[in-house]
C-alpha cells in the first residue's frame, strides 16, 4: 500500500511541479466549452439543449490531452523499467498512475463544472446528475485511456494513434453520461444511466490495469 501511494504521490508531484499540466487541462476544458456560444450563437435555449453534450465531449478531449504522457516520460527515461522490476506488481503501478491522472484531470474538471454549467446555461435540474455522472465516468475515462497510453509506447505518431484507439472506447461512457443528464432534465429518472456508468467503472477497474500492464510489458521487452 505504501509503495502504491508512493507512486501516486510521485506522479502528483511531477504533474504539479510542471503545474501547467492540470491548469492546461482545465483551461482547455473551459475554452472548448466557451467556443460553443460563439459557434452556435448565444441563444439560451440552444445552449441549454447542447450543454450536457458539450461539457461531456470537452471532458473526454481534455482527459485525452494528458493521456499520451501517462507512461511516456517514464518509458523514455528508463524509470518504467525500474518500476517494472520493483516489488509492486506492474498492474498496481499502472493503477497508481491512473489514480494520479484522474486527480490531475478528472477532479479539476469536476471542480470547473459549476462554472461551465452557468456559462452554457445548463438546466439546473441536470446539475447534480451531471456531477454524479462525471464522478462515475471520468475515472472510467482514465482507466480506458491508460490502456491506450500503454499501447502506444514506442509507436510512430503516438498522439494521433492514441486518439484513434481511445475515442471509440470512450463513446459508451459519453452516451450514458449525456443520457443521464438529458433524462433528468426531461423529467425521467437517471438511475439506469448512472447504474450503467457505475457498471462500466466496476468492469474497468480490474481489467484496465491488467490490460495496461500487459501492454507495458510488451513495450519493455
Amino acid at each position: 500500500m505504501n509503495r502504491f501511494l508512493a507512486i501516486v504521490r510521485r506522479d502528483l508531484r511531477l504533474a504539479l511541479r510542471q503545474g501547467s499540466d492540470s491548469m492546461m487541462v482545465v483551461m482547455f476544458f473551459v475554452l472548448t466549452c466557451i467556443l460553443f456560444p460563439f459557434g452556435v450563437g448565444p441563444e439560451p435555449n440552444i445552449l441549454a439543449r447542447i450543454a450536457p453534450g458539450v461539457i461531456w465531449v470537452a471532458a473526454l478531449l481534455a482527459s485525452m490531452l494528458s493521456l499520451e504522457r501517462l507512461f511516456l516520460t517514464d518509458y523514455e527515461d528508463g524509470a518504467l523499467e525500474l518500476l517494472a522490476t520493483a516489488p509492486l506488481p506492474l498492474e498496481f503501478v499502472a493503477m497508481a498512475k491512473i489514480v494520479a491522472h484522474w486527480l490531475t484531470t478528472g477532479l479539476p474538471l469536476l471542480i470547473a463544472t459549476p462554472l461551465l454549467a452557468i456559462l452554457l446555461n445548463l438546466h439546473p435540474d441536470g446539475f447534480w446528475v451531471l456531477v454524479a455522472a462525471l464522478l462515475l465516468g471520468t475515472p472510467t475515462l482514465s482507466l480506458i485511456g491508460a490502456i491506450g497510453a500503454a499501447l502506444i509506447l514506442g509507436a510512430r505518431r503516438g498522439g494521433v494513434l492514441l486518439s484513434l484507439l481511445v475515442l471509440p472506447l470512450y463513446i459508451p461512457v459519453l452516451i450514458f453520461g449525456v443520457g443521464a443528464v438529458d433524462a433528468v432534465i426531461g423529467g425521467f429518472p437517471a438511475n439506469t444511466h448512472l447504474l450503467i456508468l457505475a457498471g462500466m467503472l466496476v468492469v474497468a477497474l480490474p481489467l484496465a490495469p491488467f490490460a495496461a500492464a500487459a501492454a507495458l510489458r510488451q513495450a519493455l521487452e
Partner: protein
Amino acid sequence: MLRYANPNRFMRLARVLTPWSAGLAVLLTAAGLWFALVDSPPDYQQGETVRIMYVHVPAAWMSLFCYVVMAVSAGVGVIWKHPVADVAAKASAPVGAAFTVITLISGAFWGKPMWGAWWVWDARLTAELVLLFLYLGYIALIHAFDDPARGLKAGAVLALVGVINVPIIKFSVDWWNTLHQPASVVKMGGPSIDGSMLVPLLLMALAFKAYYIYVLLVKMRAEITAGKVRALRLRQVHGTA
C-alpha cells in the same frame, strides 16, 4: 492447430485450399445472388428493399465473425507465440473492416426508404460504428511500430479489449427497444423468418464465409511470403555467412 504453427506446413495446406475456396466462393455467390435478386419474393411490407437484407445481414454477421477470429487468433499469437495465428489476425482485419463498412452502408440504404433516415444513433448502429473504429485502430496500431512483431503484440491487446463490443452489438437490439429491428434469425426458438427468404439469406452468408476463407488464405500466404522475403533480404545485406 499446433501442426500449422509451422508456416511452411501451413503454406503447403494453404496452396492446396486456395483454388477450392475460390471456386466455392464463386459458386455460393452465384447461387446466393440468383436467389437474392431473382428467385425470391418481395416482402409484403418492405417490397423489393428486402433484397438489401440479403447483403446487409450476412455482412453484419461477417463483421462480427471476422472480429472474433481476429481477436482469438491475435490472442493465440501473443500468448502461445503461434506465428501463423499472428498472420491470421493481421489478414482478417481489413476483411472484417470491409464487411463492417458494407454493413453500415447497406444499412443506411435500407434505412432511408424504410425509416426515412440514412442514419440514426440507435444502439446497434452506434456499436457497429465503434466496431469499424476498432478495426481501423487495430490496423493502424499494428503498423505503427518499426518492429512488426511488437505491433502485432500491441494489436492483440487492443483486439481483446474490444471484444466486449461484440456481445453489445449482438444483444443491443434486445436490451434497447429503439429503432433497429430485433433478432429474427439467430434467436431462441429458431428463425422466425419465412423459408423463401431464409434460403437467399443463408446462401449469401455462406458465400461471404467462403469469400473470407479465400481472401484469408491469399493474404496469409502473402504475409508469410513477405516474411521470407524480409529474412532473405537481411541475409543478403549481411552477406551469406
